[in-house]
């Protein structure tokens, strides 16, 4: 594995941004300042960042209901995201998508998805575009452990193998789906994907360097015409399913232990491969992050709601019929 000092700093910046962004969001949400349902990504940050670090805007990702981390890792602007999460007119989706449908086509981010298992077929289609155009791009679907059971995921695995698509199945096995503990042993998800006929491995999702290594190989395989890859990133869902779920159904001592060992940030900083990142650099990055988030919230709270006419715009590009 090979990581440049710039990428190293980027990796830290992105993971830390996700963390700070969401912690701030949580507290604003708890104060009733944000609408809808939000799903926090905490402790899974290394996965999104490792996955997207070697991608460009020409590469694609299809995200899930727990998508803030994927957005940030794929390069979405903090301010535009916040505007969307607050459902404002100038949000990425003009406030019509919100947290569960946030998307940024300019960054190759093909949307969060409030349908569990909704994303993988779409990501397969993006991979088909890349294959057809022969442009070396890759496409990645993020998939929860619960989502991994959904029929659409199996169909996408198979299609990717049959058409040898440049696609990566990025499973985030945080061992919970809503309030229900996963009945699947760790590794089963990768085993299933592998049985479709693609390389599949289990990786510690809290270990940025291990994740980055696996992702680099998967992305290269895709770019070079080697077909799809599956990665099962084993991780921890720090908070409840959605903000407001106190996860009383979990053993608190166990959860606390898991939370501590699964935090990717201290592990990243403690790794010798992160040594190039000086304390000054870290402090500088941290300060910039907090400033960006502060600014984002300021802009967001001052921003306008969508005007009522927006209810009827962008249903179609052209429509010779009645909308009301």
């Amino acid at each position: 594995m090979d990581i440049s000092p710039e990428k190293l700093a980027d990796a830290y910046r992105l993971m830390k941004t996700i963390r700070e962004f969401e912690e701030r969001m949580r507290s604003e949400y708890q104060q009733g300042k944000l609408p809808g349902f939000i799903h926090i990504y905490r402790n899974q940050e290394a996965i999104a960042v490792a996955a997207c670090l070697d991608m460009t805007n020409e590469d694609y990702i299809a995200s899930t209901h727990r998508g803030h981390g994927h957005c940030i890792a794929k390069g979405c602007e903090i301010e535009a995201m916040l505007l969307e999460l607050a459902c404002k007119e100038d949000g990425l989706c003009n406030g019509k998508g919100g947290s569960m449908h946030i998307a940024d086509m300019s960054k190759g981010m093909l949307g969060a998805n409030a349908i569990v298992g909704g994303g993988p077929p779409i990501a397969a289609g993006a991979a088909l575009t890349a294959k057809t155009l022969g442009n070396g791009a890759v496409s990645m679907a993020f998939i929860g452990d619960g989502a991994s059971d959904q029929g659409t995921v199996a169909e996408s695995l198979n299609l990717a193998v049959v058409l040898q698509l440049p696609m990566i199945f990025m499973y985030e096995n945080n061992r919970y789906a809503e309030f229900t503990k996963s009945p699947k042993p760790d590794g089963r998800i990768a085993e299933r994907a592998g049985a479709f006929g693609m390389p599949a491995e289990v990786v510690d999702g809290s270990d940025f360097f291990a994740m980055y290594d696996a992702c680099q190989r998967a992305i290269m395989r895709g770019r070079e015409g080697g077909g799809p890859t599956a990665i099962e990133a084993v991780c921890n869902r720090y908070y409840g399913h959605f903000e407001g779920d106190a996860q009383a159904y979990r053993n608190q001592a166990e959860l606390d232990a898991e939370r501590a060992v699964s935090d990717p940030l201290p592990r990243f900083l403690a790794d010798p491969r992160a040594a190039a990142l000086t304390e000054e650099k870290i402090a500088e990055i941290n300060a910039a992050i907090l400033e960006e988030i502060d600014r984002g919230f300021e802009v967001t709270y001052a921003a306008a709601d969508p005007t009522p006419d927006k209810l009827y715009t962008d249903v179609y590009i052209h429509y010779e019929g009645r909308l009301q």
Partner: protein
Amino acid sequence: MKMSIREAINQTLHQEMERDERVIVLGEDVASDQGGVYGITDGLPAKFGLHRVIDTPITESAIVGAAGGAALTGLRPVAELMFVDFLGVCLDQILNQIAKFRYMFGGQARTPVVIRTMIGAGTGTGPQHSQILYPLLAAIPGIKVVTPANAADAKGLLTTAIRDDDPVIFCEHKALYMDECEVPEGEYLLPFGQARTAVEGSDITIVGMSRTAVIAEEAATQLAQKGISAEVIDLRTLSPLDEGSVLESLTKTGRLVVVDESNPFCSMASEIAGLAVERGFDTLDAPVKRVTSPHTPVPATPCLEANYVPSVERVMAAIEETLSY
């Protein structure tokens, strides 16, 4: 006793599981401590055990299909499709399997399955968690579609649904869960195919279903203050559809506004309007008005969502137009 729709459904599940041990409940998180996301199945696992209250993986085709297969072979499953929006990932098991078993097997099959599902907008959860979709279901021969608007009806209709030998889709509007009303104690059944005349009146008929029945009642109250006597019909079941009650009301009022939260095209609003002009033409004194959501997805932003669903104001405007015709 006064209770909410949420409580009425929970109570009915308890009563029916107690009464008939062939009744099982299955779905995502239904056996969790909090009784699913909205607490509907609260207390069932503790009382009836995990072999009758079954947590499933997030695979709606398997949930619905297994419920159908279990019904075909002797159980009486109550399956949960958490949001009706998820119909897209399991429609085949309803449309081509469960709904058609009896007919295509020449009357051999009996499929006593209930699929409970949440419908409607109003919670800011956006385009994929706020749809209505009951017109699509009401159009399918072989299933019945139930849309209670209050807690008493929820209890009476769910009891009937569970005891019905045909497949039933039971639609719960998420914005109504906490609405309370007086609910009969003990066993309580309501027949399918009988609309409820929520308000009697003679100047205009307002037809609603699920949440729009509540909106229609609110409109009727406002109209009464203006001296206008509106009759409100809550369809209660969309399939079977109580066409007689609508037509009969029209003979009194001659005017009709249908309020339906679904998208406009091929909606229940269109169905009722079509009924009126086909079989109630003689009685009509004015154009029928359809008040629906627009032909757009449900926007996430609460400020647009509020304008999306039919409001009392929009119903009042339609009524005024009709009355001034």
